[in-house]
């Protein structure tokens, strides 16, 4: 664990990401971190002025994981010196949390904390839908997706506009995206108005192929009679349901794809006089959405002060790194091939063994001090570059570069007057 923080954890990039620039600013300095120590003690309201101080403290505490909270109007460490209620959160990335446990009633392959490639598809489709909506509808551009280390994914929307949203606007977005409502006892969970809202019809277009592939074939969701029963309870026409039930009871092993096709086939025979084709189509659309639409843990998104696990920390249960996921290549992401700490450390040793000239020396210098030595040629490789963590960190870097570019434009506009007022700060 300690070796991971010493040699691999990208403190500098994490700093740049949260600081929105190179020069340490309150965006980082007043940011709350919450550390979970090895003995399960939980330390809230930690904050650090610079990346180096942050790194030093993490190495000292060696936490099993840590979480990122909001930027406050003052330094969170000073909260005790303030009167109650004086410390207020002023900004935080808009975050989303998808967790496969919320899919337990519709995934047949695993339950609880377990996952496999099959059910990871649910996360992939959720990422697609949410990512598209955030970009197209809300106009956000800097969305960082992060594997949560075991069975889910987090999204960090880092646009300045998203960071400063107050809680009620966050709730509005969460409500906009949250469609699967109702607990275990509320029956049909999705009943949408027609015509469909553009967000819903677009999501439906994204999800239809997934429904055909994942739900009907891979998961074979409606195979068991209980699940088939549940499917029937979502369809509107009683006499159609009756004939479907009979048919399925006589053929117990009938696959989901066949059952799904049966609905239309039987509807066409015209046996049911009460059947309304539009209602049936709408109900089928609702079913598709109920079995594929993202199930967000919306409480996480609604509050600015909510803490969320930082990218690149190690999941204590699986040992896997919480690596970023490129949403453009979401399908290629395989959670089971994400490197674990032990693998990474072994990779460094292996690399060092193969390249004895470059080994050593690096450790003392620590992470992140590379670019300066670039010009000399034959620079020392960063430890992460020797491992399979490299592509993930590279992606993180490019993400930050995009974010910083926009920040610089914004900041220049904002700082123009200020810079004029105190020109002495430019002289050295």
């Amino acid at each position: 664990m300690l070796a991971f923080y010493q040699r691999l954890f990208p403190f500098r990039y994490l700093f740049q990401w949260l600081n929105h620039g190179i020069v340490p600013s309150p965006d980082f300095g007043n940011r709350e971190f919450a550390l979970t120590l090895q003995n399960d003690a939980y330390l809230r309201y930690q904050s650090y002025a610079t990346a180096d101080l942050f790194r030093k403290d993490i190495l000292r505490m060696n936490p099993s994981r840590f979480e990122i909270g909001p930027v406050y109007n003052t330094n969170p460490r000073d909260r005790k010196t303030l009167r109650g209620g004086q410390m207020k959160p002023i900004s935080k990335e808009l975050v989303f949390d998808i967790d496969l446990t919320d899919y337990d009633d519709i995934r047949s392959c695993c339950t609880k904390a377990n996952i496999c490639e099959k059910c990871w598809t649910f996360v992939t489709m959720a990422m697609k839908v949410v990512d598209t909506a955030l970009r197209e509808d809300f106009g956000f551009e800097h969305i960082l997706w992060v594997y949560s280390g075991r069975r889910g994914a987090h999204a960090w929307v880092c646009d300045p506009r998203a960071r400063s949203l107050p809680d009620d606007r966050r709730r509005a977005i969460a409500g906009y995206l949250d469609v699967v409502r109702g607990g275990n006892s509320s029956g049909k969970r999705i009943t949408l108005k027609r015509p469909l809202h553009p967000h819903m019809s677009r999501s439906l277009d994204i999800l239809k192929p997934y429904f055909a592939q994942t739900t009907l074939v891979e998961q074979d969701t409606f195979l068991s009679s209980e699940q088939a029963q549940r499917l029937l309870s979502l369809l509107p026409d009683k006499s159609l349901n009756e004939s479907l039930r009979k048919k399925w009871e006589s053929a117990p092993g009938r696959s989901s794809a066949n059952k799904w096709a049966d609905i239309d086939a039987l509807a066409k025979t015209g046996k049911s006089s009460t059947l309304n084709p539009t209602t049936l189509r709408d109900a089928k659309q609702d079913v598709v959405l109920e079995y594929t639409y993202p199930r967000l843990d919306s409480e996480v998104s609604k509050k600015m002060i909510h803490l969320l696990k930082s990218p690149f920390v190690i999941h204590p249960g699986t040992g896997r790194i919480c690596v970023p996921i490129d949403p453009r290549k979401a399908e290629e992401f395989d959670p089971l091939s994400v490197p674990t700490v032990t693998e990474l450390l072994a990779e460094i040793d292996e690399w060092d063994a193969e390249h004895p000239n470059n080994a050593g020396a690096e450790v003392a210098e620590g992470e992140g001090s590379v670019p300066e030595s670039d010009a000399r040629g034959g620079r020392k490789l960063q430890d992460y570059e020797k491992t399979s963590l490299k592509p993930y960190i590279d992606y993180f870097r490019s993400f930050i570069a995009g974010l910083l570019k926009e920040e610089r434009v914004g900041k220049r506009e904002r700082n123009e007057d200020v810079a004029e007022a105190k020109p002495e700060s430019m002289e050295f």
Partner: protein
Amino acid sequence: MIRQDFHRIDPKRRATLDHKKKQFASPTFKQQDYPHRLNFYEIPPTDEITLEQFEQWAIDRLKVLAEIEACSYRNKSPAETEAHITPLLQKYLPLSSNTSSSNGAADQRLKNERQKDHYSHFILRLAFSATEDLRRRFARAETMLFRFRFQRDDTREKRAFIESLNLEWEPVEDAERQRLSDHLLGATPGLRRVDEETWYKVDWEKVPELVERRSVFLSKGKAYVPGREQVSMIIAEFTARLERALELTSRALPRLDEDDRLTPILNHMSKNFGSAESVYSEGEGFVDGAAITANNVDRLSQHFPLCMRSLHMNLRKNNHLKHYGRLQYTLFLKGIGLSLEECIVFWRQGFKNLTDDEFNSRYKYNVRHAYGDVGGDSNRSGRGYPPYSCQKILQDSNPGVGQSHGCPYRHFSVDNLVGLLQSTGVNDREVLRGVREDVEKMRFHIACNRVFEWTHKADIKRVKEDGTWNQTDLDTIVHPNTYFKRSYLLKQMGQAPRNT
């Protein structure tokens, strides 16, 4: 470079800012002529009024606001609220439209009405800006009042009023409207053709309500708001401005250079703003002499309202409850008088599949937090959160997959609700039919009270007959803990005579 006088005002100009002179200077906006019925309350009043007027106007407005707030706490529908509020408004705070008088806005009667509306609003601002809680409630009640009046304003005046506000709305051009027609129609239920409606483009942050309900089309951060949804935008704007202004007032309040004329009136008013939200006062749900311990909860659960009963049954069935379920239930148990120690025992026993370590590290803290045993100063001094009222449970919970908190009458499908009721022994066909009807009309309280009355009908009849309880003791239940207490007491009184 000498910059030290950067902020200093030119000494020659300073004279005009002399506060002594300013006090008697005639303000530039002294006389407002109130051209519109509605008012965004941007400009404070400066005319002189008598102390009696000051108090009377404020009290009149306060009566209206308190009633509006009460309506929302009782979960009344908009139509019911309107029926309730209209006569009150007419009596205490009439505000007529320009068309109601032949002289239009120049009529003195209209002017007086509008002046009273204007002044009373600002007086109450002073009274309710002191604490965060008061500010929030005041803004909420004022917003409801504004919405109510706005919706009843006639179309022409409404338009004139909106134009006078100068909001930054960009109309959508015809070409763009045609191009997006499918999307616009999809986002606006009930509209068949795009050219029936005009659209405005605004930043989506201005219309969070519409976004949350998914009834507006969004593209690249802009919301395309149909003309008929203007209400939502205007009201959001009204609330935002009012909240900002209240915040400013609160900062200026300590400097209110005031003798003992106004301050007592203001304080008195803020204290008497009917505290309908805290229907529940601490210890109210406690029942004297009842042995309330972890081991008794199973037996006591027959007295629980359906929401808590359902949580209890879920806990026993799954040996687990999710966070919000635990919170709702813990607070209720706290309300009936279960001590913290017993409550921890109760949850420990309830989560059968966990080891002590798991329980202590993951769940114990939450229970202690709910009791105010740990957490920040404000949490501890307030002894944790108060038990949830029906209002809170109905409005703030929205159970997701796998969660079982909330109000069964509101959050369950009707069939599941009836199933649950039957499993708790409510099987009278007439009652179930009534419940279905109530739920359909969104009268969740009535449904719950109906069930209560049926399950306790013998006891209720008896206490009514022998006169031990009068009508106020049998008022509509709006708090789960009241439900428990009443149910428990009724049963106890029913048993007592037989025991002796």
